[in-house]
């Protein structure tokens, strides 16, 4: 599995009056390019993509950037 451009994504707060969006500061998953496709991967060990991300991190082949 070819994984690149991995970065955490966070939950959002939506202002009830204006509708403006802001990050809530809590990592919810990893957005990454996997086999050429942008995918949003949850932080769930049962998810096969997340399991592969953890495997590649342990092997020193991948790092995850902080959320924007």
């Amino acid at each position, binding site marked *: 599995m070819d994984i690149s451009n991995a970065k955490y994504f966070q939950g959002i707060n939506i202002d009830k009056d204006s*509708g*403006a969006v802001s990050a809530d500061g809590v990592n*919810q998953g990893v957005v990454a390019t996997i086999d050429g496709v942008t995918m949003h991967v949850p932080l769930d060990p049962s998810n096969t993509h997340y399991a592969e991300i953890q495997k590649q991190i342990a092997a020193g082949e991948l790092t995850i950037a902080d959320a924007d």
Partner: protein
Amino acid sequence: MGITRDMADMRGKGGGAKNLIINGSMVVSQRATSSTGITTAGYYTVDRQQTEINNAGTWTMTQSDDVPDGEGFAKSFKYDCTTADTSLGTSHYFIHRYSIEGQDLQELMYGTSFAKPVTISFFVKSNKTGTYVCELQQLATDGSYPRSGKAFTINSADTWEKKIITINGNTAKLIPDSNARGMDIMIWMAAGTDFTSGTFNAGNSWTTTANERAGALTVNIADNTANEILFTGLQMEIGTSASSFQHEDFGTTLEKCKRYCYVAPQHLGYTTGTNSATLAPSGTIQFSPNMRAAPTCTGTYTPQSGSAGTFAVASVNYSYVHVYNSSSNWNVVAIVVSDFKADAEI
């Protein structure tokens, strides 16, 4: 014979849910009906049917209408070689794989003296005659991968044949009682010497020795672009005999498949109610049924007008996903989520 015994005997004879395989008739294909240029492992077309490839040619995979006569099938899974590999490396392979959750296999009672045999049956057709291998791979609770396989032969080119394989239960290793992978059916179609150099154990015992896995394999299905192979009617049932394939209605099979893959070509729209570059359309997509695990999500936005923005996920679990527009340079009243896919396969 009492009622309890009668009911038990019904299993495998049309009296209950005998087939441990979902979509064995290959009728559901949510992702696509055809996919080309495949060189890596994954789920591409027919639901629940996975391909394991490691440097063994390039393939087109199709949900095909070519089916055996007189068996009631409408679809099959077809592999068509488009770039050949006539000289496989030692660690290279090409395998058709079907994976089952551990919690759905507890009735096999593996890891106990009561461990039950299973019988796998399927229809296969190929121009490439010779001996192939059908293997069960267990993912045991201790982290090991015990395997047991049997050879089968495609005798006549371009002819549908039914194959039946029985494999004894593993009395030594437990299957995890969870939503994790508990067992794979692996149909070997090409393999390097890392998997063929050992003595094939002929399916009556379980081993973790890698070089015995495909020891009986005599073919390399990837060796010619004229090669193709088709499967349908994949069934695994408890016991030592195969019964006729258990057909079921499309809707039932689709619902079972949605536990692992949910595809919505065009989902509901989200609107801000005003043309603005600061208000983000957002909303939730509910999974029904709940998925096996929190899925990996992909999608795109189709705007009502203006720029599309960027599809983003705020949170996701096995029950729903909350999506929104994370772009800073869009300007639309409403958007529609297109090509949405949630993947919780194993």
